[in-house]
């Protein structure tokens, strides 16, 4: 790169002082709520109905008792606005990163109606838990993955399950139909 461009970039993009009114705006502001479009309600509702059916079938077929505590953790992680440690819409890249960071394995299908945003690692007791963030329509969702046994195993629900030594839980900002998050892995 030529020197002139280096110098011009440093000059043009130099740091600036924040306006004084920024603090005032922040102290007045309330956390923004996600607006849900009426237009998208129909397809989302259809996807959710099928999602519930698929999740139910999956649990019946696998006969696993999903842990309720892990579902609650997923709901907490969804509300937590900590930044993603990896931003990527590539499921394979997220899978590799998760393997390196936690030793956990996850295979998300390439073809899906959900849009993957990235991942981060959270600590649950002494065990690492991988959190994959994604979007389904206007809604945000999260998939948690941990080693089986690292989470509480009481209760039974549609939003968490155990398979091949790993425990999974999903949560969605669509509180009326949280199972829409199932579309991450279930192409419906």
């Amino acid at each position: 790169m030529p020197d002139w461009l280096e110098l011009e970039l440093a000059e043009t993009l130099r740091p600036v002082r924040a306006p004084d009114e920024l603090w005032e705006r922040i102290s007045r502001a309330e956390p923004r709520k996600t607006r849900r479009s009426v237009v998208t309600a129909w397809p989302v509702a259809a996807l959710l109905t099928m999602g519930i059916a698929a999740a139910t079938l999956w649990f019946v077929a696998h006969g696993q008792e999903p842990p309720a505590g892990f579902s609650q953790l997923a709901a907490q992680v969804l509300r937590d606005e900590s930044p993603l440690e990896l931003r990527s819409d590539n499921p394979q890249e997220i899978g590799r990163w998760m393997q390196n960071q936690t030793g956990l394995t996850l295979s998300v299908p390439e073809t899906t109606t959900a849009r993957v945003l990235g991942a981060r690692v959270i600590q649950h007791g002494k065990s690492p838990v991988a959190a994959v963030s994604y979007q389904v329509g206007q809604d945000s969702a999260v998939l948690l993955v941990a080693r089986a046994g690292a989470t509480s195993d009481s209760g039974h629900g549609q939003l968490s399950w155990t398979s091949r030594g790993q425990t999974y839980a999903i949560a969605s900002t669509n509180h009326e139909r949280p199972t829409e998050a199932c579309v991450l892995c279930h192409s419906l």
Partner: protein
Amino acid sequence: MRALFEAYKDKVYSIALRFSGDPSTAMDMAQDAFLKLFSAIRDFRGNSSLDTWIYRIVVNSCLDHKRRVWRLIPLADEFVATLRAAGDSLTEAMKSEVRDRIWSAVNELAPDLRIAIVLRYTEGLSYAEIAEVLGAAEGTIASRLSRAHKELEKRLAYLVGNKGGSHA
């Protein structure tokens, strides 16, 4: 919270402004970043430095923010003012014009290239630090910056003649 705000307000706003190119959008982004920061600070575990963690929040706010239409610079009246200016004020006006063109070229970069450029030149982060903030390999960052530099050089090559070699 106020102390945290005072410590990081200029960093947060600068990144938002240089990424968006628009003061109003930058205020929205900075506000969004601080609200996220305040709600998540209790969960900061120290796995990375506080700076890195805050940079990630700002970067996410920038990338998540809907892109707005870039203001066309110079506007007609500003251009006329440039022509009418004389002496030092003309020189200043021309410098400002060059900066606007560069800003505009930066804004046309893809978001992943633009954020790398902003972290590099606004915050002066090293390739390794940018890689940590963006959760990418250092080689990936080097590649992004190289692509960004090439695109900027190509788009701004016409300025070299107009600049009269002042930075040569």
